[in-house]
């Protein structure tokens, strides 16, 4: 009897499932919106957890330093190396410093930093807060009259919003250094000539757009990691999901923001 019903009437069940999925998606969007609004509401109110912000800056910034340095350098070297043949075909290898600097400053530095930070910092925040949630540590803070949202969420989001732009600037420098070493080795260009050519095509809007991107990426990675961890459920399985969700969602949002900010920056040129 059941199988007859299933085969003759599949459409309503499929429609219902789609409706449920859509409802769940919009509910999640609403929750994220409420979470972001709560952040802006609480971040300006006392008490201010300065010590914890500094500790979190250390955790998110300094502890990512080695990985970021290595990645930034490799990106600079590889990008320069891969771009050379195309320019050589047109006899335009002298444009290499400009090409490298435009690519690094405008796109690669903030994007590479954000993707690494989403993987390293975002997952770590998601897992840490998720684990605190399932072991009732966040509840323990709440019942002791302290403000866990302020202590755990606001501090981490502030820290990522500060450190990721700094890391992106550092990555830009390191990647340019990698590019310079490659150019210097192959074309014999001096450091001052390379830097003159590298910065010549860049405008203030390019720096502003790049910095804005890094700030937005930093905020996104922090808030998404905190949202996933803070609202984690279902025990240890939930912790894994929070860490994974923090990385996947942050990376997805970073790409969307990249497109939007490039578009907005284009209007100002």
């Amino acid at each position, binding site marked *: 009897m059941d199988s007859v019903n299933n085969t003759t009437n599949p459409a309503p069940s499929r429609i219902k499932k789609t409706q449920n999925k859509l409802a769940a998606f919009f509910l999640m969007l609403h929750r994220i919106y409420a979470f972001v609004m709560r952040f802006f509401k609480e971040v300006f109110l006392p008490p201010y957890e300065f010590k914890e912000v500094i500790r979190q800056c250390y955790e998110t910034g300094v502890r990512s330093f080695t990985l970021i340095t290595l990645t930034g350098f490799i990106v600079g070297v590889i990008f320069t190396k891969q771009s050379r043949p195309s320019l050589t075909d047109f006899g335009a290898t002298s444009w290499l410093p400009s090409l490298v600097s435009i690519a690094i400053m405008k796109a690669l530095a903030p994007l590479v930093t954000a993707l690494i930070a989403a993987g390293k910092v975002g997952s770590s925040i998601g897992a840490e807060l998720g684990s605190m949630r399932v072991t009732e*540590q966040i*509840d*323990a803070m709440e*019942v002791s009259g302290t403000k866990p949202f302020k202590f755990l969420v606001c501090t981490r989001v502030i820290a990522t919003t500060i450190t990721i732009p700094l890391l992106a600037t550092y990555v830009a420098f390191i990647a340019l250094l990698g590019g310079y070493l490659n150019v210097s080795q192959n074309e014999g260009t001096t450091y001052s000539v390379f830097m003159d050519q590298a910065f010549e095509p860049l405008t203030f809007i390019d720096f502003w757009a790049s910095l804005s991107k890094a700030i937005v990426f930093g905020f996104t990675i922090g808030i998404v990691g905190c949202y996933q961890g803070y609202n984690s459920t279902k025990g240890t399985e939930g912790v894994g999901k929070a860490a994974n969700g923090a990385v996947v969602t942050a990376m997805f949002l970073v790409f969307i923001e990249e497109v939007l900010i490039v578009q907005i920056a284009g209007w100002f040129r």
Partner: protein
Amino acid sequence: MEKQKAHIDKNNTVIKIRGVEKSFADYDVLRGIDLDLYQGENLVVLGRSGTGKSVLIKLISGLLSTDAGTIEVLGNDVTTISQRALEDLRIRIGFSFQNSALYDSMTVRKNLEFPLVRNRKGITRAEINKDVESVLDAVGLSQTINQMPAELSGGQRKRIGIARTLILNPEIMLYDEPTAGLDPITCIEINELINEVQQRYHTSSIIITHDLTCAKMTGDRIAMLLDGQFQRVGTFDEVFATTDERVKPFFDYNFIQ
């Protein structure tokens, strides 16, 4: 160790629960419960796993919200109270979690200081140190002050969890399964500690457990939670002097007799 007679003031109800209901999805956990906790009393809430014992104390502390009914704690109805007033009220309530819920990333000292420095404005370093040492002394774990929670045994973690709640001098203590997962000797030590806390800090407590030894050692009154309602409330002997088939197995399957 025999429980000392507590000074219970039956004219002073510190927690008054009336008609509280709570459901999760289609499952009705609490079905219109009524309960009073008197000043100075240790009230044990007994019941099988999944009967809503822990839900009850989470409702009292405002961690969960009720579907219906009122919960008056120290004269404040937590079902209608503002967030700000709830935060102030929570300082007067100590909550000892089943798994201790110590902050993994902090030493024992930092765990104890955390609620203190955030709730006592203008407290000096000397006062913080004095309070930390005092509660650690009360739970008999002064030597663990610089250890991380991961370095402590289950019983030590429970004690530090209790110390962390005591540091704010709460008027009410809520213990969620204080002896769960501990060996029998440590269980007895924790039960004695609960009684010491009652005597030394003059607290009124709700102790959630399914451990009859804990219930008998610590409880001035026992409330048996069955099918979402308190079926029997009284002293230990009164509660178990019954032929009720839902209550008797609880007693028969324990080794206390």
